[in-house]
């Protein structure tokens, strides 16, 4: 697993290069993202096959779960970086971004990618917390990149809520460290995740309950779970689209990864019941909270942001239900959501730049003017709202099936899932249909739609195929992740 540090190093180096090679920063970032995609896939599919392994003297720990997150971050960062090339060029053309700022855009972009890769790879819980905090800090300035009042407001709230949330996360982490050092003695590795996991039963139960609650609220804030999601629509709505892709597709999953790690610790100490019920409750709450905001929404990207809140809720719900089927479906759903949400944001970004606004009231008849993003938007919406034959339906079907077979609270969760997805389907399609079809008011200039966005067809095709047939490599991957999440020592 010597590739792990390389995976973090490449974006770091790219970030530095971007600053120095100002003009060709876009090319550097795109190339770096392709390289990380290759390395990430190798690490991910490697981790699916072989059981967990440590590297760099225990500093790095890669098992199936971290492999999945690495794969998601690799895919999403590739889409984001490739789309950023065209997006930034358009933004510079329309004067939204000053040419001098371009290098800093890519600098922070690659830095945040590096931080996101670090989260799943680091074995030490403290360092993982630092990595998550770094993802917040590196993306904060990106959210405020457009220097508009709204963007600054979004960035400020993003930073403040994120920092307070993670502070509570740190406090939870601290209590875990106390319980671990109290039980395992002074070993500095008391914060190494796999050690803790092995000795989880020895930890003090009452402390671990408080610690899990703190961590769930702390990392939950970063994962956009309700009621700590309030920063998410502002940040994703105001950020430049490639950053929204990164935030929605990759960052939420990293934060959720943190929650899942502690969920495994909590199950080790307290048994499955306590933390699963908490996860199930907060998941169902997130789905229900997202519904009203999708129904009466006035901005396209905020609509997609609330959809992310809903889908993080679905994944939490799935892990809460537990059992091999639900955990397999949870892992599957994380990948589906990342792919579908990235395509949606790319299509929304293309339309936003074309029409010059993202207000749903002024976006009409896109199919006539920009057929490809309009089609991408509609197909993406059908996919993200869990409509067969797209893959998100398959994973949600698996979660609902596990819910119906599981304990009463799981059944309630499955019913909330079905009802929530139907309502969100109605709301989102109502808005997206008015955007995509009908007659477009003005003639947005054709140049808006860059070549880069034309490749959103790739993830959509993948989602369509995975809806019915899973490549064996991915199937084993999800089974391995289900194994990691499900094993009770």
């Amino acid at each position, binding site marked *: 697993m010597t590739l792990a540090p390389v995976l973090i190093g490449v974006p770091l180096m790219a970030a530095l290069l971007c600053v120095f090679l100002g003009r060709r920063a876009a090319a550097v970032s795109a190339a770096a993202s392709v390289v990380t995609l290759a390395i990430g896939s190798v690490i991910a599919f490697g981790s699916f096959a072989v059981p967990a392994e440590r590297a760099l003297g225990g500093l790095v720990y890669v098992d199936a779960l971290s492999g999945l997150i690495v794969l998601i971050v690799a895919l999403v960062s590739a889409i984001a970086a490739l789309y950023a090339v065209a997006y930034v060029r358009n933004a510079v053309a329309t004067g939204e971004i000053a040419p001098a700022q371009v290098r800093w855009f890519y600098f922070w972009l690659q830095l945040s990618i590096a931080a996101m890769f670090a989260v799943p790879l680091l074995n030490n819980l403290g360092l993982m917390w630092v990595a998550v*905090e770094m993802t917040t800090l590196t993306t904060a300035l990106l959210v*405020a990149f457009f220097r508009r009042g709204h963007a600054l407001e*979004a960035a400020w709230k993003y930073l403040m809520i994120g920092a307070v949330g993670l502070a509570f996360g740190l406090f939870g982490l*601290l*209590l875990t460290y106390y319980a671990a050092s109290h039980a395992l003695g002074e070993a*500095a590795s008391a914060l190494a995740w796999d050690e803790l996991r092995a000795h989880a039963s020895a930890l003090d139960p009452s402390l671990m309950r408080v610690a899990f609650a703190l961590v769930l609220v702390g990392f939950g804030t970063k994962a956009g779970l309700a009621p700590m999601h309030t920063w998410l629509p502002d940040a994703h709505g105001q950020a430049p689209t490639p950053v929204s892709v990164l935030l929605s597709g990759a960052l939420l999953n990293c934060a959720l990864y943190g929650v899942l790690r502690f969920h495994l610790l909590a199950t080790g100490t307290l048994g499955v019941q306590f933390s699963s019920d908490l996860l199930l409750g907060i998941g169902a709450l997130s789905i229900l909270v997202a519904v009203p905001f999708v129904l009466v929404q006035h901005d396209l990207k905020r609509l997609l942001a609330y959809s992310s809140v809903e889908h993080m809720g679905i994944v939490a719900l799935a892990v809460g239900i537990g059992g091999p089927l639900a955990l397999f479906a949870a892992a599957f759903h994380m990948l589906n959501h990342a792919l579908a949400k990235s395509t949606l944001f790319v299509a929304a970004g293309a339309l936003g730049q074309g029409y010059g606004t993202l207000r749903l009231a002024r976006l009409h008849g896109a199919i006539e003017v920009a057929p490809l993003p309009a089609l991408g938007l509609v197909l993406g919406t059908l996919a993200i709202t869990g409509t067969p034959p797209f893959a998100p339906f398959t994973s949600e079907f698996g979660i609902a099936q596990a819910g119906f077979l599981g304990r009463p609270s799981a059944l309630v969760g499955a019913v909330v899932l079905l009802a929530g997805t139907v309502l969100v389907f109605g709301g989102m399609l109502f808005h997206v249909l008015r955007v995509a079809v009908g007659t477009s008011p003005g003639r947005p200039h054709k140049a808006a739609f860059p070549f880069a966005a034309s490749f959103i067809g790739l993830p959509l095709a993948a989602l369509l195929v995975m809806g019915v047939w899973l490549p064996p490599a991915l199937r084993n991957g999800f089974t391995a992740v289900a194994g990691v999440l499900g094993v009770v020592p």
Partner: protein
Amino acid sequence: MNDAGAVVDGLAVALLAVALFSVTIRGLVAGVWILVAQSALLALVAATMALWSGATHMWAAAFLTLTVRAIAVPAVLLWILRAVALRRETRPLLSTRHALILALALTLIAFFAAGRLELADAFPAHNALPVSLALIFVGLLLMTTRRKAVSQLVGLITIENGIFLAGLIATLGMPLFVEIGIFFDLLVAVGVTAVLTLRINEHFDTMNTDQLRRLRG
């Protein structure tokens, strides 16, 4: 042995006093200087802990606290205030009297909650943990009642200090490289916030976060 515990208890009480005082003052620069005081007291606590436990990394933690929390962060805050030429906080949401009463109530809750945490055989300073919880609650109170961006940042750093104190007491500090990571993280956070505050001030030509309420629904 218990004299170390007594010293830490004394310092903890001092910390609590400083925190309660910060709730009452209006001046922003005064707020920053309160942070310096808090950080200094924390450094002393770390030092006594190092003396008591003899652990070498405690000394490093104490030194780091002094340089980062007591010197670097306040320096950045003061630079912001000078760049923005802002002196006073506008009228906060809660009047001083109410804020103080609320702060005292929160402190009581903190003592009650800490009791429940029964960190039995931690460092013998039995009232240091409640103080850290009090610091966290007061910091949150500062953030939710102040309007100016910088004072919200001061509230945030108070919360961080509270957690750091709890860390010192309960587990003699985190493993060293984690400690370094957290400090580095705090520094970068303050830096980024500083840049953001300047941009907000440049765009809205005021630090009042009431401007930042237009993203709704």
